[in-house]
């Protein structure tokens, strides 16, 4: 069975960095993995060291334009198989894992049909992998549209701010409203320092959020960010990478 893990949180909390670290650790451990960038801002590819990726959004636009042409050249075309082909074509084959970028939000027309096709394709695609890691925007749009139907673990990344934790709380409420199947919700606190550690633990308890990790503010990450080195190349012994190992264990891998 494929384990589907979505990572979300308020912008700027470092959710993409956490996603990249999880992808790195799990694929190093030999898990065959699909990384999905479901944030319209698409930072994940760069963080993983991959540039110029095509997106599902572009593919959807292409198909939408093709099938709503006033006079299609070929009314009998197999749209499902064309969409699937295009999606499979844009999957970036990285060493040890695959990367799929959702990209731009859809245009003004009706995407019910295309999304319905995409759902079926994603359902089957996901079964190819041991783990799927999704970098998702806080609004969880792709989940409300059920492009990806079932999530085993939803991890909300927050920074050391009260607002970050509030976002986590709101996401928990949002999830209850969605009728998607979301198994467990966890919180990871990012950029934690000794000064705010105790405070954050208490905040999580007060809000009844299940905190599974506290990633310390890692000077190595900041340094790499400034130099433009993909985070994927972080050394194993950096403090953030060590904490990720403990988080992965808590997730039951």
């Amino acid at each position, binding site marked *: 069975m494929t384990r589907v893990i979505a990572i979300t949180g308020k912008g700027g909390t470092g959710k993409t960095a956490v996603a990249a670290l999880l992808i790195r650790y799990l694929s190093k451990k030999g898990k065959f993995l699909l990384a999905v960038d479901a944030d319209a801002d698409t930072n994940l590819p760069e963080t993983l060291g991959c540039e110029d990726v095509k997106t599902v959004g572009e593919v959807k636009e292409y198909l*939408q334009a093709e*099938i*709503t042409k*006033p*006079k*299609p*050249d*070929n*009314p*009998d*075309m*197999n*749209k*499902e*198989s*064309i969409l*699937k*082909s295009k999606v*499979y*074509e844009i*999957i970036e*084959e990285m060493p040890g894992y*695959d990367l799929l970028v959702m990209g731009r939000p859809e245009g*003004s*027309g*009706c995407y*019910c*049909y*295309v999304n*319905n096709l995409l759902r079926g*394709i994603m*359902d*089957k*695609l996901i*079964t*190819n992998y041991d783990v799927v890691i999704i970098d998702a925007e806080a609004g969880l749009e792709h989940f409300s549209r059920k492009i990806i139907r079932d999530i085993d673990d939803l991890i909300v990344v927050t920074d050391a701010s009260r607002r970050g934790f509030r976002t986590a709380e709101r996401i928990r409420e949002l999830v209850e409203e969605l009728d998607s199947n979301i198994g467990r919700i966890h919180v990871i606190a990012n950029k934690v320092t000794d000064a705010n550690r105790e405070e954050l633990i208490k905040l999580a308890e007060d809000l009844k959020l299940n905190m599974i990790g506290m990633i310390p503010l890692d000077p190595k990450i900041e340094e790499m960010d400034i130099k433009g080195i993909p985070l994927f190349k972080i050394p194993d012994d950096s403090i953030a990478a060590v904490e990720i190992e403990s988080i992965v264990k808590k997730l039951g891998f």
Partner: protein
Amino acid sequence: MSEFPFEISPMFEGERVRKEGMFVELGGPKSLGLELVRAKPMDEIEDGKVTIVGPDLKDMEEGKTYPWAMIFHVGGELVEPDLESVIERRVHDFINYCQGIMHLNQRYDVWMRISKDTAAKMDSFEPFGKAVMMLFKTELPFIEKMQVTFYTDQAEVEKQMAEAMEIFKARDARTKDLHDEDVDVFYGCTLCQSFAPTNVCVVSPDRVSLCGAINWFDGRAAAKVDPEGPQFAIEKGELLDAKTGEYSGVNEVAKKLSSGEFDKIKLHSFFDAPHTSCGCFEVVGFYIPEVDGIGWVNREYQGMAPNGLGFSTMAGQTGGGKQIVGFLGIGINYFYSPKFIQADGGWNRVVWLPSMLKEKIDEAIPDDMKDKIATEKDVTDIESLKTFLKEKNHPVVANWAAEAEEEEEEEEEEEEVAAEAAPMMMPAAGFQMPAMPAMPMMSGGAGGIKLTFKNAKITIDRMIISEKKEKK
């Protein structure tokens, strides 16, 4: 299925063969890939035969891409050329049932990969061909005999491709020529019921879905794969009225799927029992009572129609899965239908289109109507529309005269009708009408009026009936 070197199961559909795990790639974005199914007489087919023209699997070099064409010949008492495309669509499914073989796309864009694991288990494409044909004959038992030829030689593939292109062209011409009367089954789609619970989208050869995305062929393909899915077959039943496109089977489904809200849907009617409108239609049509004509506005058009309303306002009125008399949502492709609102005059009733839409569907507009249909560049309001139509002698103008005469004769009756007709619209639609003149229920014709109230809740605050005084 132990006779084959690889496993066969629907479970493998969607299996991705990665570059790292791939032995060879066939066709695809970097090469030529073709698949074609042809119906042939029984005596021309050697059942189960696999022919390979060009290098076979064992002669191929690991990691390389080869051109690829596969031509299936099928025969059987029930096999006819019209079924070729239906059979061909299943090639994708059945090849993907084979473990370690990835098949994508269709027709002249085929892309396949054979995994290293599967390639290690066989040295020829022969067992693969036999497996696919076994699946075809099991799942589509009307195929009595089948043979296949695989081409991997560049020149041969090019030759097959050129011939196939002609076949596809002829086939497309045939599909474009398919009409409601040529088929026994239409298709329904309930994808939009999530937000428009009583919407019943009926897709026929002459009527595309409102979103424009699903045509009759898509319905047929989807319903074959998953009859319980969102697209399903509707036996069209008895033809009740050819002009309006009313079928007993469609009416039954309309009643069932709308939970009794409607008992009729006439496919090519604008006024009487029109198709329901979901909310995602590409274009909305609106009746303009002052000129007794119909205007259409597309989703992309930002401006106002001559009635002073924009797409979004009218879409709000029309959507929600109701039959709204006076508005109709359609897919752009429906303009090309020879049955385009034929119950209500077809193109002769169209008075206004946004210029961008008019250009887009130029081919669909009959030549004699092209300069008679106004756009936002010609007119801005009802008055200027009237003048334009009169100048161009639009067919609706002839109705004006007839109506004016009637008006004089039946002045008093009309007064009554107007009083009743105006509030009737609101409860039926379930929301407030915008500030616009009441829409008459009749479409120009002479004679009386039939008012049917169903499930209506009418609230009238005040009703004043008084003698009409001539204003001069």
